[in-house]
């Protein structure tokens, strides 16, 4: 009995323990810079775009669906905003158009999945290509940068709230981090504190039972995909702001990492349900690994192999003994 309880605890908290081990390892290996407020704020800024996409990805994943098109939606949103800027529209107009595109694309995904009834994998694989094609089409394949990008837009990613806690070096809480925190809170409220979220979890647990209990499965799936598209557009805008430019492929790395973060988070729940606070841990793991390995000057290809292996190991570890074993 005792042994079984131990494996259960390990399985449940294994990811968290692994995360702490990674932190300790980097702390020991890079004693001067890793465990500093500045570095952690830096990590939070580096991963803020991924965090936003992963948080909103969690919304569709609570229903057992997922969205492969978030990366190309992020690129498209950045491109749309940048093109409007280059044509002299205001920052507000550009942001509004990009976010509207995000919602529209999400609704298209939702329509294909819930009304037409295509598997999310296939439907969003299709829209991934469509969004990417649009991004190339409207930009002509070029990167939009320089004077076309208004300073008030790119300034957002550089700015922050001054935190002179320690008085030594200037430290600030980046606006990007704040944006990610706001999205986190919004998604947490939505999934954990509203009837909407409860219904999404019910759909994820047993779609047919949820439907027969009166849960409007179709409209909820539609809405959830729209929110994920919206989040992808926010992530794309943050990215464009950070690099002060937009090109039609810059968001493409976000999709796999966002899904990986949610999966890492799912390993922490006994029932394997995605929870947004667990996704936050998943994002932190990816962010810390990236930051630490870069500081250790690990080759970027080796880094990819390491990160991939860690994801597989975490998921494998948490599913040990959960099957028919």
């Amino acid at each position, binding site marked *: *009995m005792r042994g079984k*309880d131990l494996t259960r605890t390990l399985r449940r908290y294994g990811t968290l323990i692994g995360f702490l081990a990674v932190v300790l390892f980097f702390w020991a290996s890079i004693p001067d810079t890793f465990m500093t407020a500045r570095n952690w704020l830096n990590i939070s800024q580096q991963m803020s775009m991924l965090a936003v996409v992963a948080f909103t990805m969690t919304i569709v994943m609570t229903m057992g669906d997922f969205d492969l098109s978030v990366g190309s939606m992020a690129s498209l949103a950045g491109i749309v905003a940048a093109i409007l800027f280059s044509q002299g529209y205001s920052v507000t107009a550009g942001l509004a158009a990009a976010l509207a595109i995000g919602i529209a694309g999400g609704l298209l995904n939702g329509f294909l999945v819930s009304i037409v009834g295509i598997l999310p994998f296939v439907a969003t694989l299709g829209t991934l290509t469509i969004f990417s094609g649009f991004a190339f089409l409207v930009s002509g394949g070029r990167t939009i940068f320089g004077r076309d990008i208004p300073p008030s837009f790119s300034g957002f990613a550089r700015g922050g709230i001054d935190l002179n806690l320690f008085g030594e070096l200037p430290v600030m809480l980046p606006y990007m981090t704040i944006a990610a925190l706001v999205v986190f809170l919004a998604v947490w409220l939505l999934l954990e*504190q*509203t*009837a*909407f*979220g*409860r*219904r999404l*979890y*019910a759909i994820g*647990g*047993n779609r*047919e*039972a*949820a*439907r*027969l*209990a*009166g*849960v*409007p499965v179709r409209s909820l799936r539609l809405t959830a995909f729209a929110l994920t598209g919206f989040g992808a557009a926010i992530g794309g805008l943050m990215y464009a702001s950070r690099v002060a430019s937009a090109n039609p492929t810059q968001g493409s790395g976000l999709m796999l990492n966002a899904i990986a973060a949610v999966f890492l988070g799912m390993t922490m729940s006994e*029932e394997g*349900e995605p929870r947004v606070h667990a996704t936050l841990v998943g994002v932190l793991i990816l962010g810390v690994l990236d930051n630490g390995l870069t500081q250790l000057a690990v080759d970027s290809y080796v880094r990819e192999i390491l990160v991939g292996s860690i994801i597989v190991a975490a998921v494998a570890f948490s599913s040990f003994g959960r099957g028919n074993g």
Partner: protein
Amino acid sequence: MPLFSVTNVSKAYSGVPALIDASLELEAGEVHALMGENGAGKSTLIKILAGVVEPDSCAVTLDRRRVRLDSPQNAFEHGLRFIHQELNVVPQLSVAENMFLGQRYPTRFGAFVDWKAINAQATAALERLRISGIKPGRKMARLSTGDQMLVRIAGTLVADPSRPASIFVMDEPTAALSSEESERLFAVIGELRAAGCAVLYVSHRMDEVMRISDRVTIMRDGRTVKTMAIAATDRREIIQLMTGRDVGEAFPPRRGPIEDSVALDVRSLASEHVSGISFSLRKGEILGVAGLANAGQSELMRAIIGADAQRSHHVALDGSLLPGLSPGAAWRRGFAYVPRERRKEGLVLSRSVTDNVTLPHLAETSLLSVFLDRRRERAVAGDLGRQVRLKAARLSQLCRHLSGGNQQKVVFARAMAGRPAILLLDEPTRGVDVGARFDIYTLMRELSEAGTSILMSSSDLPELLGLCDRILIMRDGRQLTIEPAAGLSQAELLHLFHD
């Protein structure tokens, strides 16, 4: 000396005892019933016999030898065979292929499947049990649930002759069967007994147990209370031993007449699976839906709440015509629905009791219909849980960890919330023990007397006759007739199904 005995079986789950020094003996050539309320420990005992659950202590003797049942393979090699209510069949494969599932196919030249031998052995096994009308080459999907179960039983006979089956454990085998399918199963059980096998028969259905078994062992609160010869006992004693209280087995009678006002009026309702459904349900009336297996009882209910698309509909609630419904709209308008398969269609097993009870009522229990009010949800779930006598350790317990009867009570509690105008119950007591069953009957009566109109399907004929005011008979998805239940006998009812 008995053929098989288990003694001193104890098992606790994280400190909570599920079995306390239980014991059981099986003789060759007997049908031995195992009865007890949900949560009495039957399932745990069976899982220990099957080698799926590891007991804290246990001694097993088979043919005077001490054996260990520590894995499913081990149990199989000692001749134990398990037939569960939820069948593991592969519908795309043939009858013969399903009978050979998990076993080595006979081969030719050591490599090619010998289809002739497979079919011949399958036929022989079916014949040994005198099962007629099932061809080995038939697709499993085309068989009724009852026939699929017979195929599973016959499949245990084609096994490797070095490991013959001697003990059959059947866990509520008739729960999903119609009365005539059950008859065929009983005939097969008779054949097994005649062949010298022991059959451990778990069922909540008193009639069956009294009819087909030789002895009965009663379990209560994790202990085996008593083993008796069926001839030397009666229902009353069995129920008393199971529940530890004196439960009147009578159906709670209706006190007072039904109101005259029509609550639900259905005219020529049709879906993909049913057609020509017309009836009107008075306020507080209980209308039964009956027929042979799969005559469209479930589909009738699904059509009413719009779970299956309505092809033509004229459904009026309290005199006002409803638009084509969806399940969501139906719940909002005062319908409540208990589907047939609680695990597949009723519950979100990965969620708590509270979450499952309030799922259709979140708009009412949430602040401004949006923000979850967990305290209110707990109050609602706790209140309903007490009314249905739910035995759950905590309201936050996951439904996955509840016994079958308690899972059913969760689905029932959900349907009772807010006193629905129309309550649709599809096999509400399926797999539910006697005590819980009468709790459900009493609740149904209370609801009906408070003005809820109930439509219930059941394959348990005494239940239909004991509770319903009228019975709607179906065949092949069509409505045959509606008969008043008073004065109808089981035989007459069966006769109506066939003709």
